């Protein structure tokens, strides 16, 4: 059994305009030492599914259903106290913007040590500080002892993100959820952070769920990929299968719209239109109105995830497998 198994997760928000179904029927799993990438455009429900798993959404507005098994515990059924105990110790999360997720009025050392002390009352202040210092060293912050006394505003964006990672990893979590941790960073800093996550995965054997909209980052880091569109999983599989033999027209669009290599003469492939409103999603396939291969059936029947060539590779599309395979072969590194 995998470390984290998400089964048929649904999350909706009640708003003044009606019910927004942000996540509908999302399933995936991650095992120890593996990195799962979740990709999709803004508003496709990637972050909301993670917040649902962590139970960080306000119960007043959001309702969540499904099953989220983490190490034998159903997170959606767990009590608030149990969740409190798991969060930060067994499951840690890194957010996109390190400036808003660090407290500006506390020193770095205090904030990192707090993450350790809160889960272990017996830990003395001195020991917690020592662990904080060791953690800052592990994430590659120069002169960590001096940095413990710094405030967040005194650090650069990359340094702050490292502090967030140090804080997340201080209790050796089994699962790390990273929500666009490098989006706000420059490419050389992003490379440093990705390198760090790579070593942590190998050294600590933690599982990582990495949310991003950057397909390049997925290719660099992940073992498996989930492609989301308008609250649903449209394709799921090993990173090589998804990049070299993509099966869903939306994945084709995402890969085709990358400015990639030496295609100056050719127009970039772009997906026309924009994603549907989740207040009133279309019946049938949610990608139908932007899909160039759309058929009558797509507008009425919702496609289920069916298996595709490759190991554990699934796609939700009505197109005949032969058509999908033909299209998939046009991608670089494809079988053709």
């Amino acid at each position: 059994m995998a470390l984290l198994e998400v089964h048929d997760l649904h999350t909706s928000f009640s708003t003044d305009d009606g019910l927004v179904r942000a996540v509908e029927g999302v399933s995936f799993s991650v095992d120890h030492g593996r990195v799962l990438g979740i990709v999709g455009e803004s508003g496709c429900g990637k972050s909301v599914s993670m917040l649902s798993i962590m139970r960080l959404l306000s119960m007043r507005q959001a309702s969540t259903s499904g099953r989220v098994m983490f190490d034998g515990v159903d997170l959606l059924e767990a009590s608030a106290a149990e969740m409190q105990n798991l969060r930060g110790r067994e499951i840690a999360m890194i957010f996109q913007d390190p400036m808003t997720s660090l407290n500006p009025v506390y020193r770095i050392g205090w904030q990192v040590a707090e993450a350790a002390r809160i889960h272990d009352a017996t830990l003395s202040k001195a020991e917690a500080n020592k662990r904080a210092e060791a953690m800052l060293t592990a994430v590659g912050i120069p002169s960590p002892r001096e940095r413990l006394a710094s405030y967040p505003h005194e650090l650069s964006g990359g340094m702050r993100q490292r502090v967030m990672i140090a804080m997340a990893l201080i209790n050796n979590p089994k699962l790390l959820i990273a929500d666009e941790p490098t989006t706000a960073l420059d490419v050389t800093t992003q490379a440093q952070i990705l390198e760090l996550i790579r070593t942590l995965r190998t050294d600590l054997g933690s599982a990582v769920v990495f949310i991003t909209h950057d397909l390049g980052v997925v290719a660099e880091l992940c073992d498996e990929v989930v492609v989301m569109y308008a609250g649903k999983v449209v394709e799921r599989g090993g990173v090589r299968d998804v990049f070299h033999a993509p099966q869903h027209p939306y994945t084709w669009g995402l890969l085709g719209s990358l400015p990639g290599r030496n295609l100056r003469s050719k127009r970039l492939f772009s997906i026309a239109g924009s994603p549907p409103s989740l207040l009133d999603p279309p019946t049938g396939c949610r990608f139908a109105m932007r899909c160039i291969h759309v058929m009558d059936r797509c507008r009425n029947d919702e496609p289920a995830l069916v298996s595709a060539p490759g190991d554990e590779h699934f796609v939700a599309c009505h197109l005949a497998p032969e058509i999908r395979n033909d299209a998939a072969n046009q991608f670089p590194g494809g079988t053709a």
Partner: protein
Amino acid sequence: MSSGETILRLEKLTKHFPVTRGIIFQREIATLKAVDDVSFEIKAGQTLGLVGESGCGKSTLARCIVRLLDPTSGRIEFEGEDISRLSGKALRSVRRDLVMIFQDPMSSLNPRMRVSEIIGEPLEVYRAGTSATRRARVMELLELVGLNSEHFNRFPHEFSGGQRQRIGIARALALSPKLIVCDEPVSALDVSVQAQIINLLEDLQAEFGLTYLFIAHDLDIVRRVSDEVHVMYLGRVVERGTDEDLYEAPHHPYSAALLSARPVPDPDRAQNRTHIVLEGDVPSPLDLPSGCRFRTRCPRAQPVCSEVEPELDGPAGIHEWACHYPLETWPLASPEDIRRPGSAVGVTEVGP
């Protein structure tokens, strides 16, 4: 102006911001060198790409060129005329031909104005035509950027990010400019929308013979649109060349590091290639390192790098780099390769 002629030429353009202390007697305590000694030229109908990380001075440079900022020294020649000191009427007339597209399409559109007013404003400011012809022109511009007449009376908040960027482009095109400075025009957009906007910019260039100065931090996008690429680091151009020169044979270690840091959307290549991970952060532009600005993070730095600031130079053609110990081979076989400055090249490149 026919294509192939130089439309914009920068000569030793410099922008320094004074950092002051005190209220009444403001003492200058430091100088922030945002853009230092940048020279280049763009030919009509071409695209010059400018890449670099945040804080390298690319946006300041853009703002100097459209004269939203006054350069400290140097020349900006637009169609043969130095515009770096123009003001009043003369500047106004240049600004018809020299426009800008901004990064954030939300904050660059006035939320209280209708789309028709936003796009029509440049026409009104320059009193172009009658109100009827202006209206027709706005309709035409909407069509041109892929919007339609039903969007005429809407407000910016009713549009998605990509559509807002289209409105910004329509406004820039209103007076049929010659040169458009695009400052990170797609970095706030999702990938599929990025592709739409890039296709649009390319179509417009082909149709109207526009010249672009295209600024971005995404190397792949810059390569895609540009005829010539310049890499900036801390206010200086460290390497320049055609896209092939720069992407297939980078010579400056910083360009090489940028290229190797760029995520490659192909798992086989991405997970098996040589990464050059730079250490540390970009130094403060208030307190620049002596000699070469990159030496504090450069894996090839030698004593001479802290003494002599390298100038842009190259054997022939437009491919030039500012480095005492440039790379000779690319791609690198192992990460260690970047630490070995080739002795022969190193010696010949050093000099007063």
